[in-house]
């Protein structure tokens, strides 16, 4: 006997305006069973949750929040393609769930009326019904249901109230095969759509869905017209232009006709089914906004909040990061205790454990930044921050939404780049993301502190108020942000040029942030980072380790390390001098080993290139080796200048008051060219600092850019342009310093 086939899996799409609590509903339905990826070729996040409803597997597709389905860009086209079943990697949907803010029905129903026009089973979810009730808005859901011909479900997403009604609603919508097209457009417009359909058939082609035909007429130069212009076997563009002028003559204006017709339909639907309180009381939002967007008080509050965010990623994350580094050190030590010195031990300690640590160490900053972003977004402050900062950011061609990602990048570019997802406009987002790594992150600080401590003379000005090293540090921290301004303007004028995007932004009502949303967002972003960028960061660390380890002959070095460890196991005064001699030998051998490794070859190979900026091949090695992360150069210089072989060596733990390892500072000061001139001086120190201020020596940043832009050419571009800038900056700094006789 044939087994009864399992019922086909269903695909249900969730769509809604921003600020409707859509993601709370999605998370409430799918729990943590969701997968995040990217739609191919675009930067739209693909979120799919798996649930079982009534014994059937259901794939819940969460589309990004949108105010309408009138695609202007490829990114906006994804939603239309998913809904119509044209997206190759998503099954054609069986039903659509439209989530609306119950306290702001009028505008929210605009998107719903467009979805109704797709003619598929639809469920209308009145989310945040508690907020509407609190505002004195009463909604007759049964009457609304009758008028729109689709199931209506009231929910409180943040409390997970009413979510079970969604499952029933979807099955009911599918059974009733509802979704009656309301035909909101005037007669003349509808006739033009029919005429377009006929013209399509007459040319021998099969016309696309009616919704797409309507959109071609409505969206002048929109994405759908562009897509079909090349495939239609008649002059589509000319046809549309003449149809639009015919409509204009009969008093129908494109694009205004759509908003007019849909909002008129919405008024008819809501009239009598929804009632508002007689006089809209001065709401809490009004009173908060009076202060928060105030000319002075508003800016003060904004600065204060940003200061807290910045402090938290910069400083509060430190104990957590220290903890992760501590665990990493402990794990390295534990492996070293159990394994003989050799390639396996080095791979585990300096490759694998360092690689895992190098991924995890970013988590505290990512978690903290997204905690604040989630709180700001969920309570409604984020839109106000963008409102306050917009004018400033528009001077470099961006919008207010770019401020928080860029500011966060001063602590660390990784969470900053991930935060660019709050920018809907693709061009703005790309420019923000590409200049974010120029902001002076915390990893640059140790490099600057080391070199300033070693080479910048101690001078004070203005009666001790200003110190030279403070000024140099400030300049080094500022140079990236200063350079970012022309870079952003240039990018906006070249690759990302186009009409200024609309900054038409809703300022949502304030509400108390929900801990579920906030914690969910933090967990979501942290997981996305580890899963999507973590493996690549790990792989880079291991590769660079291998390049610094092989093919040097390390047998003598391993032997010395073994002897040291034997002495350390039974320390006594007698063998102290032997221990010191071995330690010196170890440092010497380690320096020689790295010089004869692939990294060493690379350092020598690039020496002709780095000579003009004043570096020798050893600095070259340090720069190449610091590709995974800038701060690696300190440990590498330590090894190259024969200070200590192991990463946990003395050179690092002995930090002096100037913030740099004192042994390393001495070594740098005494380093000589073959002809006896000192390698380092103030010009070389400046050139190295400027280089590190502007370069892209951070594999994690490049990996995250790769993941966020869904491809490898933007990280490659970032690396190329930042390295070119860094080299040019280093050259100028070196030549200037030399010319000044410093």
């Amino acid at each position, binding site marked *: 006997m044939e087994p009864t086939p399992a019922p086909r899996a269903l695909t249900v799409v969730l769509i809604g305006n921003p600020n409707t609590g859509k993601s709370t509903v999605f998370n409430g339905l799918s729990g943590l069973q969701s997968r995040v990826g990217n739609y191919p070729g675009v930067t739209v996040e693909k979120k799919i949750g798996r649930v079982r409803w009534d014994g059937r597997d259901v794939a819940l597709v969460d589309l990004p929040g949108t105010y*309408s389905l009138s695609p202007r860009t490829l990114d906006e086209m994804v939603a239309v393609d998913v809904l119509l079943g044209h997206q190759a990697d998503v099954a054609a949907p069986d039903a659509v769930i439209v989530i609306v803010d119950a306290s702001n029905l009028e505008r929210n129903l605009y998107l719903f009326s467009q979805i109704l026009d797709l003619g598929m089973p639809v469920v209308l979810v009145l989310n945040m019904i508690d907020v509407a009730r609190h505002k004195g808005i009463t909604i007759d859901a049964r009457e609304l249901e009758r008028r729109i011909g689709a199931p209506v479900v009231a929910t409180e997403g943040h409390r997970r109230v009413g979510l079970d009604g969604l499952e029933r609603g979807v099955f009911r919508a599918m059974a009733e095969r509802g979704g009656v097209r309301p035909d909101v457009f005037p007669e003349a417009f509808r006739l033009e759509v029919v005429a377009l359909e006929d013209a399509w058939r007459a040319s021998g082609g099969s016309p696309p869905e009616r919704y797409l035909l309507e959109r071609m007429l409505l969206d002048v130069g929109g994405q759908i017209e562009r897509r079909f212009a090349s495939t239609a076997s008649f002059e589509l563009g000319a046809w549309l232009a003449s149809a639009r002028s015919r409509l204009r003559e009969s008093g129908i204006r494109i694009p205004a006709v759509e908003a007019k017709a849909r909002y008129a339909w919405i008024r008819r639907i809501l009239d009598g089914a929804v009632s508002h309180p007689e006089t809209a009381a001065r709401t809490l939002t009004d009173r908060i906004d009076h202060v928060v967007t105030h000319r002075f008080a*508003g800016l003060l509050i904004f600065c204060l909040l940003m200061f807290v965010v910045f402090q938290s990623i910069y400083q509060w994350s430190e104990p957590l990061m220290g903890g992760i580094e501590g665990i990493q050190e402990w794990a390295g030590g534990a492996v070293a205790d159990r394994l003989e010195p050799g390639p396996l031990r080095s791979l585990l300690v300096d490759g694998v454990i360092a690689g895992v640590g190098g991924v995890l160490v970013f988590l505290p900053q990512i978690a903290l930044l997204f905690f604040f972003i989630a709180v700001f977004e969920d309570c409604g402050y984020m839109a106000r921050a963008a409102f306050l900062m917009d*004018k400033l950011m528009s001077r470099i061609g961006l919008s207010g939404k770019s401020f928080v990602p860029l500011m966060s990048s001063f602590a660390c570019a990784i969470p900053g780049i991930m935060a660019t997802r709050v920018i809907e406009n693709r061009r703005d987002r790309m420019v923000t993301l590409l200049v974010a790594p120029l902001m002076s992150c915390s990893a640059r600080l140790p490099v600057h502190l080391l070199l300033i401590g070693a080479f910048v003379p101690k001078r004070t000005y203005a009666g001790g108020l200003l110190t030279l090293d403070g000024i140099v540090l400030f300049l080094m921290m500022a140079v990236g942000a200063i350079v970012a301004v022309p870079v952003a303007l240039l990018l906006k004028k070249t690759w990302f040029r186009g*009409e200024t995007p609309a900054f038409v932004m809703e300022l949502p009502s304030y509400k108390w942030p929900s801990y579920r949303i906030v914690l969910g967002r933090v967990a979501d972003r942290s997981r996305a980072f580890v899963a999507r960028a973590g493996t690549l960061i790990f792989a880079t660390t291991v590769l660079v380790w291998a390049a610094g380890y092989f093919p040097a002959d390390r047998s003598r070095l391993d032997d010395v390390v073994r002897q040291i460890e034997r002495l350390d196991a039974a320390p006594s005064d007698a063998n102290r001098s032997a221990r010191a001699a071995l330690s010196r030998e170890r440092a010497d051998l380690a320096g020689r080993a790295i010089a004869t490794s692939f990294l060493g070859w690379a350092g020598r190979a690039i020496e002709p290139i780095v000579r003009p900026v004043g570096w020798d091949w050893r600095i070259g090695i340090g720069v190449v080796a610091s590709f995974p992360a800038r701060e690696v150069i300190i440990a590498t210089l330590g090894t190259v200048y024969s200070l200590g072989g192991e990463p946990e060596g003395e050179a690092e733990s002995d930090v002096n008051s100037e913030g740099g390892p004192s042994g390393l500072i001495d070594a740098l000061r005494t380093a000589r060219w073959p002809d006896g001139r000192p390698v380092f001086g103030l010009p070389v120190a400046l050139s190295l600092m400027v280089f590190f201020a502007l370069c892209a020596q951070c594999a994690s940043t490049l990996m995250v850019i790769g993941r966020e832009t869904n491809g490898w050419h933007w990280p490659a571009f970032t690396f190329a342009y930042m390295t070119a800038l860094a080299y040019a900056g280093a050259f100028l700094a070196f030549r200037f310093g030399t010319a000044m006789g410093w």
Partner: protein
Amino acid sequence: MADRMTLDRLRTGTKARIVDVQGDDAIATRILEMGMTEGEPIEMVGHAPLGDPIEYSVRGYRLSLRKAEARRVIVEPSDAEPSRGR
């Protein structure tokens, strides 16, 4: 009947009725989609510290527009307080 003007010139706290949104590009479409259709009442709530963008109240919610965008919207200031049409 009051004189027509562009929306960006509406003073803080004053109300008007929308007459027209000019243009047929993405920005015009977006302004319309957000509910700024002919005959709809709108109120200027306030502006950001540098004078731009400007906050409006329309269809029962708050909207921020840049001056350049508000300049595309033609309005007719209303002397008396308009009734919220719903």
